[in-house]
């Protein structure tokens, strides 16, 4: 029992539960499978970005540039889809976006590691470089009119149910892709040497290095993985809206960081879990969706989100203060 109460995830879960109950009491249409599947589909973009961000935060770094990476990969696959749409398939699209994302993430890692520039500075700079160059090259044009197979894949479902009015709904393929990525991420973090090394590095870089961890390799992996998730995220975004615009993602980086931090990852590194991240994204999703269902005017949305973030971070700051006090008492007694 004590173990459960000491975990951040428990509190996020309770928050998710309380919000869900309140929203359902006001508008029962929240608590339906239809709404759940819809939420799971539309938040797979933020969820995918959050997986990559979790890795970076655990390693003790931060990546602001992932929205720009996703813009570059999204635009590249959009151009390819428009010109050679019929020769491509969904696996190739994910692969191409992933490779470009990994390459751009690797550039971040190399700059961060070799010149010892703080990750926040490096990625702010590369955000401007990637985004600026892409917008110049694309002249800010929106791309749409992708091949039919691409549109069909976006609406494909694993299973289909019907509402009372015979409107079909079900578990989207996009959600399944997101969940697969979550499982892979969870497995890496929890059961592989690689994952445990990332925690070690985030806890204390100097000790990790002394202990023989390959810090450069880990840095490259973490930022490449973020790039990979950015690439995959851009394909998901293209699937969801069937349009690629150079300015649709940049500017949303802090929202993703907020979701991951709500889920218990610390900005100083070494802590965070996949479950927490999932709950953090869920909290943001439920609040956004719930405010709409409770007929709160859309203009209040940001105020509520900001307030919840402040309460949450104040609460975890308070908890960590208490635990430090407890430790001091135990050590001195």
């Amino acid at each position, binding site marked *: 029992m004590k173990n459960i109460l000491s975990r951040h995830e428990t509190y996020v879960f309770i928050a998710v539960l309380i919000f869900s109950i309140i929203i359902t009491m006001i508008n029962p249409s929240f608590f339906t499978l239809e709404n759940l599947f819809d939420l799971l589909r539309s938040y797979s973009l933020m969820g995918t970005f959050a997986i990559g961000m979790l890795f970076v935060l655990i390693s003790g770094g931060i990546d602001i540039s992932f929205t720009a990476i996703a813009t570059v990969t999204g635009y590249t696959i959009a151009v390819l889809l428009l010109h050679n749409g019929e020769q491509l398939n969904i696996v190739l699209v994910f692969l191409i976006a992933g490779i470009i994302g990994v390459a751009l993430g690797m550039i971040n890692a190399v700059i961060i590691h070799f010149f010892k520039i703080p990750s926040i500075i490096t990625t702010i700079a590369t955000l401007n470089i990637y985004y600026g160059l892409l917008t110049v090259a694309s002249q800010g044009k929106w791309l749409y009119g992708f091949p039919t197979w691409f549109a069909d894949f976006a609406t494909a479902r694993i299973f289909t149910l019907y509402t009372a009015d015979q409107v079909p709904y079900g578990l989207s393929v996009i959600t399944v892709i997101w969940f697969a990525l979550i499982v892979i991420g969870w497995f890496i973090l929890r059961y592989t040497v690689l994952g445990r090394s990332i925690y070690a590095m985030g806890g204390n870089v100097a000790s990790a290095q002394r202990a023989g961890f390959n810090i450069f390799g880990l840095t490259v992996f973490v930022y490449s993985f973020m790039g990979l998730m950015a690439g995959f995220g851009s394909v998901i975004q293209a699937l969801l809206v069937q349009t690629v615009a150079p300015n649709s993602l940049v500017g949303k980086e802090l929202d993703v960081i*907020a979701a991951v931090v709500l889920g218990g990852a610390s900005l100083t590194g070494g802590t965070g879990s996949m479950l927490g991240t999932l709950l953090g994204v869920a909290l943001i999703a439920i609040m956004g969706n719930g405010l709409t269902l409770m007929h709160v005017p859309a203009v209040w949305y*940001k*105020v509520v989100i900001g307030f919840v973030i402040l309460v949450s971070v104040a609460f975890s700051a308070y908890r960590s203060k208490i635990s430090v006090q407890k430790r001091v008492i135990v050590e001195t007694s």
Partner: protein
Amino acid sequence: MLRRFSHLSVLLVFMVIVIALMGLLNGKNFLSIGNFQSMAYQMPELGILTLAMMITMLTSGINLSIIASANLAGIMMAMVLTRAFPPESANSFGVILLAMLVGLLTSAVIGALNGVLIAYLDISPILATLGTMIMISGFAVVLTEGYVISGLPENWRIIGNNAVLGIPIPIIIFAACAGFMALLLNRTPFGKQVYLIGSNPTACTFSGVNNRAVLFYTYMISGIFSGIASMVMISRFNSAKADYGESYLLLTILSAVLGGVDAAGGFGKVSGVVVSLIILQMISSGLNLLGISNFFTLALWGIVLILVMVIKYLIDSYVQKRQLA
């Protein structure tokens, strides 16, 4: 000595290179008085906001809410100027002064809120200000319902668009802000404490400094500076809106770091930040004269930041090696 001056000298060399390059590419247009004047109109918004960001970075913090608080202060000012009084009297000196006070008060309250969260509730600055950023820009949307408040009185527009003896008023305001900040940081006990908190908060506590109070005032000053930036901003746009200048946020960090402010806190001078702002503005104006896209400027700013950081790193490690040898 080499180490102490390395960053500013790298920046000055960069500035000379940029002036020479832009002068060469643009010829007379770039070196004309008109161009320098237009640069002096454009730089202060980013400049004052960068100062607001800088002082928090010196304490090893960050203030992500500066743009949001500038916009909210701007909206409050614009509401006083356009809605609170009949149009005939809105142009009077008294109303303009009142609007300024309202703007400063708004931004000071936001700064104080950040201060309480960070100094007294021990929330990490990046999270506290991320939360206030989202919440405050939310309030700005609620107040305006997402619309623009435009049509500010004639006399208000003087702030952003007129010149005294050929010197644009915005750059005078910026110079005053930079001068005040430099004095505050270098010539007062408070300034020393700001640097000390940034380099070693524990040592700072044990030397008898009230860390919490210093941090609280740091965020309050940061807030007030964003309010001042907002005066110039809404005057130049002749309107206020909930999401003006959002792209400035990361740019203020970029220009502060380019100016030698250490993201880990404790180091950085106003002079470096001013030179870095001049470099950024010259690149932007020079490329603009050549008819090159603004987005290319963004990319180039990023490249310059990385280049300067790399050069600084190389100089630092060279100096270290020589000291060891």
